[in-house]
C-alpha cells in the first residue's frame, strides 16, 4: 500500500479542468474534465457542469492505489 503525506492546505477540492467545447445535450459551454466515483468505481469524465451530461468517461484506478492524486 502506497503512503502519502498529509495535504498542506486545510480544505481540499477536486481539480476541475475546463474543456473548451459545447455540451452536445444543452449547448452550454460548461464542459469540464474531473474524477468521479460511479457505481463501479473511479472514472475520469468529461461532463457538462450545467446539465450533468457525461460526454465521455474512462475507467481509472482509485487515486489511493494509483498514486495519481
Amino acid at each position, binding site marked *: *500500500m*502506497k*503512503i*502519502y503525506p*498529509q*495535504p498542506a*492546505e*486545510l*480544505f*481540499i*477540492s*477536486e*481539480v476541475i479542468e475546463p474543456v473548451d467545447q459545447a455540451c452536445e445535450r444543452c449547448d452550454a459551454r460548461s464542459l469540464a474534465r*474531473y*474524477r*468521479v*466515483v*460511479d*457505481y*463501479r*468505481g473511479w*472514472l475520469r*469524465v*468529461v*461532463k457538462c*457542469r*450545467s*446539465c*450533468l*451530461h*457525461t*460526454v*465521455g*468517461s*474512462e475507467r481509472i484506478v*482509485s*487515486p*489511493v*492505489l494509483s498514486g495519481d*492524486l
Partner: protein
Amino acid sequence: MTTLAPQSIEVLGAYDVEARYGVDITTAEVIRHALEHIGLQMQIKINTASLSPLLSEVNDFGVGLLAPRDVDRDLDFDAIAMGTAAPGHYVINQFYARMAIEHWGAENFKPGDVIIFNEPYRGGSHINDVGTLMPIFHEDELVGFAAAITHWLDIGGPIPTGFGPGLQRDMYAEGIRISPRHLYREGELVRETVELFTEQTRIPDISVNDLQVIHSALKLGADMVLRYVNRYGRDAYAGAVQYSLDHTERAMRAALQAIPDGEWSAEDYMDNDMNGNPMLIRCTVRKHGGEVEIDYSGSSRNEWGGFACTWSDGVSGAHLGLQVALPESISPNAGAYRPVHVVLPPGSCLHALPPMATNAGHTMFIAKAINLVKRALTQADPAMAVAENYDDVLFMSFAGADTRSGVPTPFISMNLFQGPFGGTAQADGSCYTFQEGGNCVVTSVELEEESFPVLHLEREFVADTGGSGQYRGGPATRSVLVPLADCESSFQLDQCRIGPRGALGGGNGATGHIAVHRDALDIWAAGGDFGEPEILAGIVDASGRLVGEEVPGVTEFRSSKQAGVRVGARDVVIHQTPGGGGCGDAAERDPAAIARDIRNDIVTAGS
C-alpha cells in the same frame, strides 16, 4: 472514452421485457423478488447463529449477492440483492467485494472457496469490517458471488473494540490487516486464517464460531441462487438479474425526476479533530433530470488519529443520503447507484490517504455525509425539508475483566446508542432511532446485563432538548451506565460542541455530553445527591462545570471522541445524546401537539 447512455424511465411491458432480457416478465419478477428474499435469508442465518452481539442482535453487517460477469448484459459482479441490516455495508459491498475479486483474480476462485479480507483502502469501510466472498459456480461457470461484510467486535491492536479516536494515529495502529486469502479452500476451513483471529483479537471464541457462521450464510445464499439457476437456466437467471438492476435504476431515475433541477450546498462541522479543532465538511448536490452529482469539495483535509474515512465510505454516505431523502424505498442494489456520480477529492476527510487511520472516522464521517445530502436537498423543495439529526454512530465501550463467576474473564461491552432525528416538513423528528447508515438495533438491557458486568440504570428522554419548530426535533436521550469492574473505555458522541441545526427557521437541538460520578453506585441506589460530575465530553467552564456554549478564552471543550479513558468499578456514567433540530416556524406548531409534548415530558410548560 465511451458514452454513457441513460436508461429509459418508462415501465416496461411484458413484450419489452422478453425482447430486452430474453426472459418472460413472470420469471423475471419471480427471480427479482427471490434475490431480495435470499439476501434476507442470509441475514437471518447470521442473526440466529452468531455469538457476537454485533451480528446476532445489532445487525452491524451487510450480506447478499453479486451478479455474474457478462459483458453483453452489462453485468460485472454488481450488487444485486442485499439484506436490510446495515445500509452502510450494503452500499460498500459494491466496491469492497469487487476490489477483492480484482485483487484475487476472478479466474482463481474454485468451488467451495471463501476469501476473507479487511483492507479499508481497497473499497472498504474500516478495519473492523471483515469482507468475505464465496463464488457461485453452476457446473464450471461462475454465475456470481455471495458476499458479506461483518463488523468484528474486536480486531486486535492497542484498543479494545478497535475504535481509538485520537490514539490510533495511523493505520498501523488499528489492528490486523488482512489481504485477501482463503478462509475456506475448496470447502475446507483454513486453520492458519482462523488463527489470525484467535491469536490476534480479544474475541477468540466468538471468532471461531462466527467465521463458520458467515460461511454458512454465504453457502445458504449460493445454494438458493443455484436452485433458481437449475430451475430456469443460466440465461434466464442472467436475464432476470439484468432486469432487476434495470428495474431499480428506472425506479431511481423516476424518483429523481420528481425533484426540481438545480444545485444546492450545505455544510457542517465535526466537533473536533485530534488537536481539538472543528472540521468543516461541505457538500454540493447537483441534479438534472434523472442524474445527480454529489460533490464534497471544500471539505477539511484528512487528519491524524482517525479523523478521516475512506473514499468508499464517502460514496456510501452520498448514496444513502440521497436514498433516504426520497419518498419511496428503492431496492438496495447497484441499479440504484447508476444515476449518481460522487466527487471526493483525495486527501480530504472523506477520502483519506494512507497511512491515515480511518477506523473511528468511518462512523463519524459517513453520518455527516448522509446528513449533508439531506440538508442540501432541503433547499431543492420545501416539501423535502429536514432538520439535522444526531449524526454519529454513538457508542461507549467498556473493556476489562469480568469476575462475576469467580474466574476473571476478559470482556468487551460495546454500548450502542440511538438518537433523535430532526423535524421534517411533514412530521416531528423521531425520538430514538439509529442513524441511517447503521440502521442497527440496540441490544436489550437484559441481554447486556446478563452478558457483561455493566448495569444499565436509566434510559430517559430529556425535556427541552429537541429544536423547536412547526415540527420539533426529537429529544435527547439520557442513559446511565455503571461498570462493575475497572475498565478502559472508548466513546464517540459528536455534537457535544456544535448541536444539530434546525431547518426553515426551526431551532437547533441541544448539545450532548458525557459525565461521570466516581464510585457513586451506592449514592444512586440510596437516591442521594451526586454533586457535580466530572465531565468527560462537552463544554466546561473554568471550574469544570458543564455549560451550554463556548466562550473563547473562558470555556474548554473536552473531546467527544476519546479512547483509553479509565472508568472505575461502580462509577456512574451519564451519557446524553444531542437533541434533533426543529423544522419550520415554532409559531406555526399545532397547539394540540404542544399539549401532547408537555404531557409526555418532551417539553416543559413555559419553555
